[in-house]
């Protein structure tokens, strides 16, 4: 039995791998002490070999004997397992967005990652949704239903929020603003992907890939197929579990 555990900024993801398949997976809120969520999960499977990834990987290693890999390697392994030929991966999580390029054999050849700025991340979408009074799922749906958006110029979470407030006060309907925010994020992510270069398709992983409106806008923006795995949040944890198989 192998376990991959991905300690992200918003959620902790765990995948149990046995006999060549995922037998169990779990996504929980990170909370204040994310390693406790992870340790509670690991206690249920004391005999497993574990690999940790994500922002909290080193924190967990202080509490438990295990190996760590970066999110970049984890997502590369996970995405490659789900889409064997893929060469470009876009991963957007709570606080990071990254583009990972692979060679034919699946080796990482280069990657791009945002610095400390939250632009284009799940956190950004969440903040904008909150300031419009939407729940997360509603936010994407409202954006899909709106016919058009209005340009949002700032991708800084702080400035964009004041832009959203001023749009609200100009009487722009919330659905239109929701669409605008999605268009702005899709534009930013597409720019990041275009900078790295991409082939005829792209794998989109991370919690933000659950937002189907964003996926569609990204396809329109890039003009290629954007492939989303059935559970995009657990791709990193899956990659970590797969890495555990090689140890």
């Amino acid at each position, binding site marked *: 039995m192998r376990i991959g555990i991905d300690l992200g900024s918003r959620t902790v993801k765990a995948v149990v791998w046995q006999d060549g398949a995922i037998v169990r997976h779990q996504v929980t809120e990170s909370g204040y002490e994310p390693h406790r969520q992870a340790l509670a999960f690991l206690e249920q499977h004391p005999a497993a070999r574990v690999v940790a990834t994500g922002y909290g990987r*080193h924190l967990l290693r202080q509490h438990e004997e295990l190996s760590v890999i*970066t999110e970049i*390697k984890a997502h590369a392994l996970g995405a490659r397992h789900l889409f064997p030929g893929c060469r470009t991966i876009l991963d957007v999580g709570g606080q990071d967005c990254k583009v990972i390029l692979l060679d034919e054999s699946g080796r*990482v050849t*280069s*990657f791009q*990652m*945002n610095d400390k700025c939250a632009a284009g991340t799940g956190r950004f979408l969440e903040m904008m949704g909150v300031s419009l009074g939407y729940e997360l799922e509603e936010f994407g749906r409202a954006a899909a239903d709106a016919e058009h958006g209005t340009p949002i110029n700032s991708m800084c979470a702080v400035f964009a929020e004041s832009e959203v407030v001023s749009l609200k006060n100009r009487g722009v309907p919330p659905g239109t603003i929701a669409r605008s925010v999605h268009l702005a994020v899709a534009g930013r992510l597409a720019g990041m992907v275009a900078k790295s270069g991409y082939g005829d398709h792209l794998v989109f992983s991370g919690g933000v890939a659950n937002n189907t409106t964003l996926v569609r806008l990204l396809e329109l923006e890039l003009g290629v197929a954007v492939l989303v795995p059935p559970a995009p949040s657990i791709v990193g944890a899956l990659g970590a579990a797969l890495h555990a198989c090689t140890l």
Partner: protein
Amino acid sequence: MSEAFQVKSDTELWEKLGMDVARFSGMPGMLTQAYTNVFLSQKNRPAGMAYFDSMVENIHTGRIHEIMAVKESGKPVIGTFCVYVPEELIVAAGGVCVGLCGGAQGSIADAEKILPRNICPMVKSAFGFKVGKICPYFQAVDLVYGETTCDAKKKTWELLDRYVPTHVMEIPQMKRERDKVLWVEEVKDFKAAVDKIAGTETGFAEIAAAISTINAKRASLQRLNNLRHHNPSPISGKDMLLIEQIAFYDEPVRFTLKVNELCKELDQRIADGIAVAPASTPRIMVSGTPMALPNWKLHNIIETSGAVVVNEESCIGTRYYKDLIDEGSTSVEEQLERLTERYMKIDCSCFTPNDERIDQVIKEYRDSGAQGIIDYCLQFCHTYNIEAIKLREACEQRGIPFMAIESDYSPDDVGQLQTRVEAFIEQITG
């Protein structure tokens, strides 16, 4: 040794220098702690590092006393911010040249009371050190000699002049014959400014001796860097960076002697197979913008992530010591021309075109036996940031793993940087 290490205090000296003593008195303790964590925790350091440890212990005291003694004897003490300002001419006048570049987050809040926030952290840190009266070197100098290598610096000098006399040397941005004509004139003006403080005009013999002194200093660093390229590494990247930083405030003759002593020790280490990390350790070269003391952020992340830094293509690094001045001159005029020619070889990204730097980076990559390059750009340094595009292209053409990062002195991005550095190491090791 690690129990004994302590950055020293001397409130009497600091009072005399007009520092904000109440505020500064916390600094030695903070530096002691940071240095202990970053440097003294390393295993198997060369014994010769003891001297450089002591230079850090004396950074706010012993070395300041030495500099003040020179100043009280009527010799010039000049602060600089750039490897383009010719220290040979200060040494020729019997004076002290101190590199003042600010490398600490602590003084940035002082600077931001006056300067815009979105400019280079090094410029802000340096300016803040003076405004906050929290740098003994800044308090000790007769004047600051700035230059025009970037917009943030050039315009900050106008404001800095209100706190300390600040002269500006014009560094051209192209390297044509007419630029050289201007450059030589600027070097002559610099010499005149130095001589004015000294009250004498330095002549051929003094300049020749100073050129020889600084050539020897640069040559010792070249020698050390060559030894350091050996695999397995006989010295850590962090220790090498520290020595490169100390080069900017230590007395040059003693510094050269100590670097050469360390080189002898490294020769022996290599012969005996003693190293700081096994030969299989991933080897990373850093290129880009300078890292002023105490900016050890990137090296610390790289070396605590299981790799070793094997070269700094940086102003604090090879850009400072890769070129020497021809010592065959027979007149002062000729000396100043040879000196200018040497300085014109420095390949800062403020020049256009600057393709020789791309070649130099590739050469140093090969010489150092590195397996990948991390290009380090201080936030808002547009010229290095844009030049990284050409550097990336050159690396991609040659199959050299390359990663560009942009960072400042704040700890906010350490988590993301660590992930990126670790992923880069995974990429190198496959």
